[in-house]
């Protein structure tokens, strides 16, 4: 008997009674669709060690990038984020938009450019926006970090040292 057959056989033999699917959860009305979602996103992003801005109408994207990056322009990689999640400052990046998958983790400085309108309140809405045929996708929330040494937060563990988000108004 193969391992596969043995394991599936043992599962059948366990005869677990049916259990209904998890109840569908939606975000509470207080945060869903709130006009303050960008504010919430930027606040949470600050708490996870990132920085973000909304591009002003009088700025070009280049100007906004220059203002946000400062001296970190060298070594910065700019990638497209598909959408953002207000509750946890995560931005969804899909491998289809990258030259290499390591681009989300290898650069010293990572910049995510996200369309202003592409914002959902929580992960419940976010997982539904993941492309059905995605080969690889990420929710990125702030830069790489570790607290493995006496719980002292150190930003820039193995991945990017900084992570910045620009909301781009179309």
């Amino acid at each position, binding site marked *: 008997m193969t391992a596969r057959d043995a394991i599936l056989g043992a599962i059948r033999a366990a005869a677990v009674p049916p*259990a209904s699917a998890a109840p569908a959860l939606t975000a509470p009305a207080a945060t869903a669709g709130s006009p303050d979602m960008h504010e919430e996103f930027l606040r949470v992003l600050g708490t996870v060690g990132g920085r973000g801005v909304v591009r002003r109408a009088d700025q070009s994207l280049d100007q906004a990038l220059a203002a946000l990056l400062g001296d970190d322009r060298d070594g910065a990689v700019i990638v497209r984020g598909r959408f953002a999640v207000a509750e946890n400052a995560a931005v969804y990046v899909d491998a289809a938009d990258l030259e290499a998958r390591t681009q989300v983790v290898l650069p010293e400085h990572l910049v995510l450019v996200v369309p202003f309108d592409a914002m959902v309140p929580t992960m419940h809405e976010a997982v539904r926006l993941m492309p059905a045929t995605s080969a690889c996708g990420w929710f990125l*929330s702030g830069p790489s970090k570790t607290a493995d040494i006496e719980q002292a937060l150190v930003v820039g563990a193995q991945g990017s040292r900084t992570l910045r988000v620009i909301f781009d108004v179309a």
Partner: protein
Amino acid sequence: MNGGHPEAAATFLRDAPRAAWHDDSLWFMRERRDRATALPEWESLRTAGAALKAHAMSRLGELLEQFERQATANGVTVHWARDAAEHNSVVLGILQGAGATRVAKSKSMLTEECGLNPFLEASGIEVVDTDLGERIVQLAHEPPSHIVIPAIHWKKEEIGELFHRTMGTAKGESSPDALAAAARHHLRDALLHANAAITGANAIVAETGGVVVCTNEGNADLGMHSAPVHIACVGIEKVIATRDDLGVLLRILARSATGQPVTAYTTHVTSPRPGAAMHVVLVDNGRTARLADAEMRSALHCIRCGACLNTCPVYRRSGGYSYGHVIQGPIGAILAPAVDLSAHRSLPFASTLCGSCGDVCPVRIDIPAQLLAWRSRSAAAGTLPSGYATIFALLGRVLSSQGNFARTGRWGRRALRWIPAAWLSGRWNPWTRSGRELPLAPTESFRESMRREGRLP
């Protein structure tokens, strides 16, 4: 490890300042978790977490087959392994087939459970654990002492000394920033030059065929997207049905584990990148036996967040190694007896049954109920820790009769007032041995004093 939680805990507690420091470190994590879970919908999220796991367990075979179909269609090779030995030989086979000799591994409790590292090293394969905490304990030739924070028991000065010896950092350097920077250099090198990457999985999604890996350091991503071969080692209980379920899981996992709203990197990978290979090894190793055990089944819901460790007054004051099992704390104390009840006989008793573990569990595993159930099974199997059977038999007679209880109390109070204090607090008494004093016994019971005051009808 032969039934030794109390003995190991006593050793841990001998260094009182260090034990207090350990306790504080974990309570800090518990408080972070409390702040992060202060959401109006938190309790319904826990209910949804419990439901999605119960649902997945009730359709486990079907979901694993769906995952396998999806993943195979996506170009992933799916393997199955009945036990640790089979898992290890499958992984070795993949590595040898790919000619890989240098492995960068990210955090995986399953590979700890299976003893993968020593097995691969014995076959001439170099394995570098790339999570900083795991690298610390690997360099020190120790197992993790906490499932989420493997080196929680290490002080920064000791890590400085370890890194000085192993990575050549400056003598006496102990700032977390400097040590983490040295580790970044050292680990990036290992990650980018490995010819295979091994990761665990926080979940696999039947609907998408995707493997979900959560890290804060980014080490799993650096490894799996650089190396020509990625192997994900996954316990079969990690499968969930849908992306909707993933949404719930991702909302509860990091909040419970580290008090973050989500991890820095949450990767959902369904296909290898062009030119690379991806393998998933689905491992049983006792999980189907647990599935068949209705009373203990829900322990399979565990998402390894570590919240029950951080909150447990016994874990915080006894340390991970006192459990003598790959998974520590309250969840370890209900998982280990299923592996070997006799060897882990002391673990169901390594709890005050205060219930805090059950209260913080994001998937509502009733850990206290299972601890109690393991105690009953231990009694039935005759594997109670030595002395417990006699004590429980006596206690049972005292507590099951009001007359016996009142009489024993009366004799006990009298005896405690007559026996010399020096003898009562002698070496034989574990209560006073750890520095506590016995209070003077009262002359009457609560019931007696209430009756004397005329307040008892």
